[in-house]
C-alpha cells in the first residue's frame, strides 16, 4: 500500500506528541500520591459533588441535544423553507462563538431580570445560577454536534423506503420508528458522544451561568482551576485524571454501542 508507512508514522507521531504525552505527564504527576491518594481525593465531598454535577448534567444535556439535534437536522434536510440556509448556518454558531461570550449571553438572558428569566421567575423556575443553567449551556454547546452528525444520514434516506413501508400497510409512526430511525442510530450515537465529550470539558460558557456554588452548581473543571490557583497541583491533576478515566470509559461504552448498532442493522 503506497503511503501506508508515512501516514501511519505521522498518525503515531501526532498522537504521541500531542495527545498521549500531555496525558501521560498528567497521569504520572497524579500517580505520585498513589491509588489510595487518588481515591481519597475522589471521595472528598466537594470533589465528588463537582464530578457528579459535571458528568450527570453532561449526560442529560447530551441526550437532550441529540434529540433536538435530530429534529433540527430532520427539518433542515427534509423540508425546504425560506431562510433554510440561514438557519443551517446558525446551527454552527455555538462552534464559532467564544464560549465565554455564550456563557455571558445565556446568563443575561436567563437571569431573574433577563428577557427569558423574567418570564420563568414567576413560574418558580430558576435557570441562571443553578444546575439547570449548566444544563441549558451544555445543550447549547452540544447541539451542533448532534445536528451535523445525523444530517448526512438523513439526506441519504431514500424516499422510496418510506413509500415501500406505507405500501406494506405501515402507519406513519411505524414507518418512522421501524424504517427511518434505525439507520440514523449510529449517527445519533456519534453526535451524542461528541456532545457529551464537549460538555464534560466545557468551561467558559458554564461558569458564567452556573453560579458556581460548591456542592450545588460547581463543575469539576472549575474545581481544577480553583485547585491550581491554590497551588495544589497534585489535587488538580488528580481530579483531571479521574475525569479522564470516567470520560474514557464513557466514550468506550458509546463506541461499543455504536459498533453493536452497526452490526445489528447490517452495516458491513
Amino acid at each position: 500500500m503506497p503511503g501506508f508507512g508515512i501516514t501511519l508514522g505521522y498518525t503515531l507521531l501526532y498522537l504521541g506528541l500531542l495527545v498521549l504525552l500531555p496525558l501521560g505527564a498528567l497521569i504520572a504527576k497524579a500517580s505520585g500520591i498513589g491509588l489510595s491518594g487518588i481515591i481519597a481525593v475522589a471521595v472528598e465531598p466537594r470533589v465528588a459533588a463537582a464530578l457528579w454535577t459535571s458528568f450527570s448534567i453532561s449526560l442529560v444535556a447530551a441526550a437532550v441535544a441529540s434529540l433536538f439535534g435530530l429534529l433540527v437536522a430532520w427539518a433542515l434536510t427534509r423540508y425546504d423553507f425560506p431562510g433554510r440556509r440561514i438557519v443551517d448556518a446558525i446551527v454552527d454558531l455555538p462552534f464559532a462563538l467564544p464560549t465565554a461570550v455564550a456563557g455571558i449571553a445565556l446568563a443575561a438572558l436567563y437571569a431573574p431580570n433577563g428577557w427569558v428569566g423574567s418570564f420563568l421567575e414567576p413560574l418558580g423556575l430558576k435557570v441562571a445560577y443553578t444546575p439547570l443553567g449548566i444544563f441549558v449551556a451544555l445543550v447549547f454547546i452540544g447541539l451542533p454536534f448532534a445536528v451535523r452528525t445525523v444530517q448526512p444520514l438523513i439526506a441519504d434516506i431514500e424516499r422510496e423506503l418510506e413509500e415501500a413501508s406505507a405500501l406494506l400497510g405501515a402507519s406513519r409512526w411505524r414507518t418512522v420508528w421501524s424504517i427511518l430511525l434505525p439507520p440514523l442510530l449510529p449517527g445519533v450515537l456519534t453526535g451524542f458522544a461528541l456532545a457529551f465529550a464537549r460538555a464534560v470539558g466545557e468551561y467558559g460558557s458554564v461558569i458564567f451561568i452556573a453560579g458556581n456554588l460548591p456542592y450545588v452548581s460547581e463543575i469539576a473543571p472549575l474545581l481544577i482551576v480553583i485547585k491550581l490557583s491554590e497551588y495544589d497541583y497534585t489535587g488538580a491533576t488528580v481530579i483531571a485524571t479521574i475525569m479522564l478515566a470516567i470520560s474514557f470509559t464513557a466514550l468506550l461504552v458509546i463506541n461499543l454501542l455504536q459498533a453493536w448498532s452497526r452490526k445489528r442493522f447490517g452495516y458491513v
Partner: protein
Amino acid sequence: MGIRVAGVTKAFAGAAALHDIDLAVRPGELLALLGPSGSGKTTLLRIIAGLVEADRGQVFFGGLDATTLPVQKRQVGFVFQHYALFKHMSVADNIAYGLRVRTRASRPSRAEIRRRTSELLDLVQLSGYESRFPSQLSGGQRQRVALARALAVEPRVLLLDEPFGALDAKVRKDLRAWLRDIHERTGKTTVFVTHDQDEALELADRVAVLNQGRLEQVGSPDDVQDHPATPFVMTFLGQAARFPADIRDGRVLVRGKPVPVAASRSQGSPFQLYCRPWHLKPTAPGQGHQTGTISGVRRLGSMRRIEVLRADGAKLEVEVPLATSLRQGEEIGLEIVDGVLFPES
C-alpha cells in the same frame, strides 16, 4: 381482481403529465405499460398504487372504488426499480415486515409469519438466505426479495416499476422468464412499467403504449406489432422507414407505383407509408419503388440487415436472408411488399 382506471388526469409542473387515461386490466392479466421516458407510465402506476394523487379520475380494484383509499389501505404489492429494501433488516425481516405491522387483531401468529416467509423464500428461490442483509445480495437477488416482500401481504394486485431496469442484460433475461413463471403460479393481476419494447412484448399478455401522457394503443403483443394504431406505436416498437404515399382509385401508390397495401379509403393524399426492414425486398437497380447503394451489410441473428443509402442521403434498412449475394457498394432497387398506412399528420 381487475384494475380499472377511468378518466385519470394529472398535471405536473415540468414532469410527465397524464391526459384523461382510461385503462382496464383484466383479472389475472399481465399488462405492460410501455413508453419512452417522460411518457407518464410511472406516474400512472403510482396513481394506481396511491403514491400519487390524480387531479381527476378514478381507480377501481374489481368493484371497489379505491380513488380515495390511502396507500396503507390499498393492499397493492409494489416493486421499485431500485428495490427499496430495508437495509437494516435481514431478508426474512424484510419479507415479514408487511405482516408484522398489522394491528394485533389481524396479525398472523409468529409461527404463521415464519411459515409464510419461508414459503415465499421458496417461491423466489432464495431459501437459505433468510438471515442475510440486502447489502450481501446481488441485484437480481435483491429484486426477488422485493417481490417476495410485496407478495407477503397477499396484495389485491401487483405493480412493478421498471423491475429489471437496474440489472444487467443476462440477469434481466433470466428474471423475465422467472417473473412470467411466478405470475402463472400466483395468478395475480400484474401491471409492470418498462421502456424496453422487447421486454414488454415478450412478457406481457397485453401492452399499453403511452406517449406524452396519452394512451396510444392497448392490445396484445401481436396487435400492437401488426396493427399499430398510430405512427408513434409503429416507430416506437421497432425500426420503420417512412415514405410519402397517395391513394388513387383505391390503390396505394409510392412514387406513382402501386404497393400491395390495402387502402383505407378510395382517394386522398397525403399519406405516409411506414415499412419495417422486412417490408422491403431487394430487386434489380431501377426496378421497385426505391433505389440506392448498399452502404453496409450486418448480421442480425438468423438474418442479414443491409443498409441502403439513397441519393438524398437517407438510409433504409432491409432484412435479407443470411446467404445473400449482395455486397457493399452495389447499387440496388427496393420493392415495397408490405407496410402500414397512416394519414399525414
